[in-house]
């Protein structure tokens, strides 16, 4: 069992938890992920590592409540524990040698973008963070990002915080104003990553995306997380989760991501009834 040392809501649907997992904390690198199970009957879900503290032996996860498992996870309290917590899995994000990077985060994807921005900043790179949310109440990690960025652009769909528009609007403007990035690192919903890569392709800026497909074991065993990259089948769990955004088949990834939508909706509704007494 893995204890929840700290829990705090970041917004109404996003929660941050610090989990006691010294072995994982000792090895974790930005870009890697864990797989967890909430309880004995629970499914295994992958979550990218949001932060880690090697001395305290803790790993931070940030998750959005989207389904039954994250609903159950959010129902656990500080001091409680998770059934299983495995990692670090996957390959770390390659950021060695980068001098100027645009880190683009969308929604809860910012949770994963943040440790990457932090490490880039720490190695002396110029970091421009462009983050997007639907509205003000969903904004997360604002101060954290600001503290590790030379430039921070906040975008919201409705203009209730920062500037109204999409992350691609801000990125295009920055590129057109003469900013020259060695690399763009985009993490967020598939559709956001797809549009970011379409934009960066125009300007020929190498772009890394972080894929978060359906997984079971996370060790290369099931192949459920496979995706097409440059015409070849890759497993996100062992070959990724980071890939060259220019080569990823996003359409296929979006279709595969919707495989269990019906099941998930039903399971989530049941979990809601259980935990929230009816409202779903």
């Amino acid at each position, binding site marked *: 069992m893995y204890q929840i040392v700290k829990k705090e809501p970041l917004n109404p649907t996003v929660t941050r938890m610090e989990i006691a997992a010294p*072995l*994982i904390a000792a*090895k974790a690198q930005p870009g890697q992920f864990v797989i967890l*199970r*909430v309880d004995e*009957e*629970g*499914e*295994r879900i992958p979550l990218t590592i949001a932060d880690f503290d090697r001395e305290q032996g803790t790993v931070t996860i940030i998750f959005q409540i989207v389904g*039954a*498992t994250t609903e159950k996870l959010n129902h656990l309290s500080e001091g409680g524990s998770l*059934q*299983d*917590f*495995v*990692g*670090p*899995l996957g390959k770390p994000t390659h950021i060695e040698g980068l001098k100027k990077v645009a880190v683009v985060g969308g929604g809860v994807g910012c949770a994963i973008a943040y440790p990457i921005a932090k490490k880039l900043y720490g190695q002396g790179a110029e970091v421009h963070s462009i983050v997007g949310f639907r509205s003000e109440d969903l904004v997360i990690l604002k101060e954290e990002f600001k503290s590790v960025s030379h430039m921070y652009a906040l975008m919201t769909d409705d203009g209730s915080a920062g500037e109204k528009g999409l992350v691609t609007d801000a990125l295009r403007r920055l590129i057109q104003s003469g900013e020259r990035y060695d690399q763009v690192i985009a993490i967020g919903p598939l559709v956001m990553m797809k549009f970011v890569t379409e934009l960066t392709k125009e300007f020929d800026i190498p772009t890394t995306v972080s894929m978060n497909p359906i997984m*079971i*074991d*996370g*060790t*290369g*065993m*099931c*192949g*459920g997380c*496979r*995706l*097409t990259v440059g015409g070849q*089948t890759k497993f996100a769990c*062992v070959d990724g989760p980071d890939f060259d955004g220019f080569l990823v088949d996003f*359409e*296929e990834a979006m*279709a*595969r991501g*919707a*495989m*269990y939508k019906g*099941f*998930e909706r039903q*399971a989530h509704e049941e979990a809601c009834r259980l935990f929230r007494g009816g409202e779903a």
Partner: protein
Amino acid sequence: MPNMSLKKNEMPSQEPQARSRNFQEVALGYTEAQALDEAKRCLHCKNRPCVSGCPVQVHIPEFIEKTAAGDFEGAYQVIAQSSALPAVCGRVCPQENQCEKLCVRGVKGEPVAIGRLERFVADWHNQHVQDAPVKPASNGRRVAVVGSGPAGLTCAGDLARMGYQVTVFEALHTAGGVLVYGIPEFRLPKAIVQKEIDGLKAMGVKIETNMVIGQVLSIDELLGQGFEAVFIGSGAGLPRFMNIPGENLKGVYSANEFLTRVNLMKAYKPGSGTPIQHAKKVAVVGGGNVAMDAARCAKRLGAEEVYIVYRRSEKELPARAEEVEHAKEEGIVFKFLNNPTRVLGGDDGEAVGIECIEMALGEPDASGRRRPVEKAGSEFTLDVDCVIMALGTSPNPLIKSTTKGLETQKWGGIVVEEETGLTSRENVYAGGDAVTGAATVILAMGAGKTAAKAIDTRLRALRP
């Protein structure tokens, strides 16, 4: 007087109609009377060919003799000298290619049902003898075992019996490896696997789950933590695909994924958090035990039609004869001499069919089996909403890529010295599918046994 019946005693089993709708065990096991009768068919011939056909050399005539005399616990003790997992092997060994293949009674008539007798004896012991295994005196020396499948469990058990303090590292949340995630409940009840694992724990073996070696700790770190030797039994976990168009459509699974969802995650049970597609028409591609398992699971999940698509003929099927028989009884449709050419997709990125081409058998290939060749222009479509690829697996590269100096074959198998299981790294041993590629439970157990003996010899030579 031996029983000279040419036929072996039939195995009682659930009716096909009923069992193809549930996940309970298909074969029900011999009664005492059947076991006594079958055991009397053994002629106790002098040269004991059956023993040489067993990868762990179970003293077969001796255990059958005790069985015939009604000394079932005595029979169990004979098997236990050589095999760590009798209740498992009695169920999943391909006996017809091993011990039973060489049985003298098989020359004229059917061989003695050695596997069924082994299963009977092991089950009898599990039901009647509650003594926990005795914890051997510790010699204070630590050995790490990576992977808790048949190779790892056997190696751990043998070392523990010699007094070593063994820690088994398992990547998943439950120990048992392929016995738990791969082989379905109806063929190998998980309670049996758990019992074997509990036995090891009682002997002092520590099992650490959620430990992906190669990621959270490397082999070198294990050696640095005071483990004097490491045995790698990490299996062949990486699924193969055909690389045909449409293979990444929704509804196309590797057998590993499909079986893991069903067996390890219990997706067939209401209340499991893990989803599975309840498909109407399913095509399983491949002809091994894994293909049979996947097909029979799909049927049990409610599929109306389940096809096995296999590119060779029935004669070349690598699956155990009993599994093929059971699959047929349950209504699985075999499409022999057919090979998929692409998976067809619908508007939503979901599989709606599989296009196959007819094959003919040509000259024998390197495996000695006749090579299938395509019949031009014979393509046809099977309407299915689920395709399961059961084409075999290769070893997982996680350990290889994080262990300096560990030699592997081009296809990923770890290179070992056959007599000892020693790898190219000092004090690092390996066995099972991680070395051979996908093979059988009993071969993996044989390799675990060999390595345990070699580790003991080596460590005592290093420091008596």
